[in-house]
């Protein structure tokens, strides 16, 4: 508990967490103050004005309502992919690191292979074969499928270093099974580490989603921050100087990812005493 209080003393953690809550508030509460529906069509490509605070896109849809929706889907994909990749990666990583033997060899082999094969390639190949029916959930699953190996690798290295500790041997002598030892003796030690892995996985999930949406392989029926950028690119918003069509979305993505990274580094500083001044 004390360590979490230490976390609250770290200024970079406070910056990160407040940026994160600000974006959450924007996604959740902003529509209560700003009543413009996504379905109402205005004048296409209106610059920001009193009616549309951030202008409209090429179809005349209000940008702020689009951004709110896009932010929601991006957060959904990011968290879902992050949770899945972290759970699968942690379980397999702990299992491999603790068990050793051929199970370890197989899991290490798979993770080593998939760390080298670029994620971008696998994402493009899978998404391209699913032209129809790419929902947000499916995209999150695809991203998790390509990224769990990172968490497995990281967690495996940590748990295999824990294996030879005395309290594990003691638990063994007391007749505890592997599952019980993993749950009660290993996972608690790894918790802060796993949480940091989860933060990074979620941040990279948000980036991956916007990457595949940018190249036109995004969700087919919803708006995400990536599809907003894709539409802006396809409709020449860049060369027309229609900054409101893409700058807010890029800033939003950057702010969320920045918040996650700052939280991660500040946690590293608190949990890893070596990095303290």
């Amino acid at each position, binding site marked *: 508990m004390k360590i979490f209080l230490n976390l609250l003393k770290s200024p970079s953690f406070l910056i990160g967490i407040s940026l994160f809550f600000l974006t959450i508030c924007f996604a959740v509460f902003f529509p209560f103050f700003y009543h413009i529906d996504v379905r109402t069509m205005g004048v296409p490509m209106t610059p920001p004005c009193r009616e549309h605070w951030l202008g409209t896109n090429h179809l005349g849809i209000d940008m702020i309502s689009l951004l709110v929706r896009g932010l929601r889907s991006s957060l959904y994909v990011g968290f879902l992919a992050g949770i899945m990749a972290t759970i699968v990666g942690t379980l397999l990583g702990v299992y491999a690191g603790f068990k050793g033997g051929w199970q370890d060899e197989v899991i290490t082999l798979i993770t*080593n*292979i998939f*760390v*080298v*094969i*670029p*994620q*971008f*390639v*696998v994402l*493009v*190949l*899978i998404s*391209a*074969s*699913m*032209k*129809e*029916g790419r929902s947000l959930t499916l995209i999150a699953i695809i991203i998790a499928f390509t990224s769990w190996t990172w968490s497995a690798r990281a967690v495996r290295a940590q748990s295999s270093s824990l294996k030879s500790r005395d309290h594990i041997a003691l638990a063994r002598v007391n007749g505890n099974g592997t599952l019980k030892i993993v749950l009660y003796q290993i996972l608690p030690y790894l918790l802060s580490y796993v949480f940091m892995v989860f933060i990074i996985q979620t*941040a990279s999930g948000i*980036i991956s989603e*916007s*990457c595949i949406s*940018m*190249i*036109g*392989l995004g969700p087919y029926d919803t708006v995400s921050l990536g599809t907003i*950028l894709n539409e802006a*690119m396809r409709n020449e918003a*860049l*060369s027309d*100087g229609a*900054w409101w069509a*893409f*700058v807010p979305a*890029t*800033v939003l*993505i*950057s702010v969320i*990812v*920045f918040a*996650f*990274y*700052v939280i991660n*580094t500040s946690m*590293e500083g608190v949990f890893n005493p*070596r*990095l303290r*001044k």
Partner: protein
Amino acid sequence: MFRNHPTARYILTRGGWYFLTFLVAVTINFFLPRLGPSNPVDIILAKAGGVSDNATRQKEESYLKEFGLAEVDKSGNVLRDAKDAPVRTSAWKQFGNYIFMSLKGDLGTSFMSYPKKVTEIIKTAVPWTIALQLPAILLAWIVGNVLGALAAYRRGIFDKVFFPLALGANSIPFFAFGMLLVYLLGILWPIFPAVGGYDGGLNPSFSLIFFGSVMYHYILPFMSLFIIFTGGQAIGMRSMCIYELGTDYVKYAKWLGISESKVLFYMFRNAMLPQLTGLALSLGVMIGGALITEMIFSYPGIGMAVLSAIQNNDYPLIQGCTLLITVSVLIANFTVDILIGFLDPRVKAGRGVK
């Protein structure tokens, strides 16, 4: 056999490793696009079935033959079943065919610019991509490491300014930064050209004017990759060096009064190795990000080829590009691994690294 040559043994085991990874990558490259409900093979086969118009029929059949999707009889006609649908070749036979063709350097024919070969399209795009990405990654690695080590060593005001900047650069997605750069320096204050690899009015040639135009168009995409990469590398090096600073040998060296630059050099050398491993691990992500940056700048490289292939459902071109990207990432990784083999004293001493 190589008991006395740890470096040779290291290179051989790594080589075997990468060959295995290569096999997996080729298999993935073939089977993944065929898994989905709207996979290209089904679409082409469905198109070729039950066509009455003779001209279309011939065109579709030529596709089937060329991609080896349907069984062909001895005289070269596509076999058809009772419902007039072409008889499909088994996936394994297609896979064998694909491997055989790829080994011959034939990646098939593009759909969108038929009858242009995929290899032809890739050949014109590759030099652009290499010229953009290789210097960006190498320079960023060097500059990032030097800056990161300095920030860790000096701390103080330099670190206070530098670290948030590097963290910011590291957490802005490639494409976001690229788009902002295009808008700010290409459109709002048009200092640099916003899109393309050279002036649209020029024909690619070995003239001075063309070269100048290429360099002028090069600056913006290069900067957008370089800055982001540098930030990422610097952060890694900074925390590596902070760790090294706490070790006994640095304290001892400082206590002995060895000059600052010499201590910095020792520290740098020790922190380099993990950084090199880090580079190997992040190469795939870097190249993926750089490809998307190419798309934003409409830079005539592989990234643009992938983008237009995706937009036009040009599956042979998609597969050709992904295969090429994977193989280049594997080769780059292998090179870094070999370098580590020569630099790592543990490999030299023959204890081996895991």
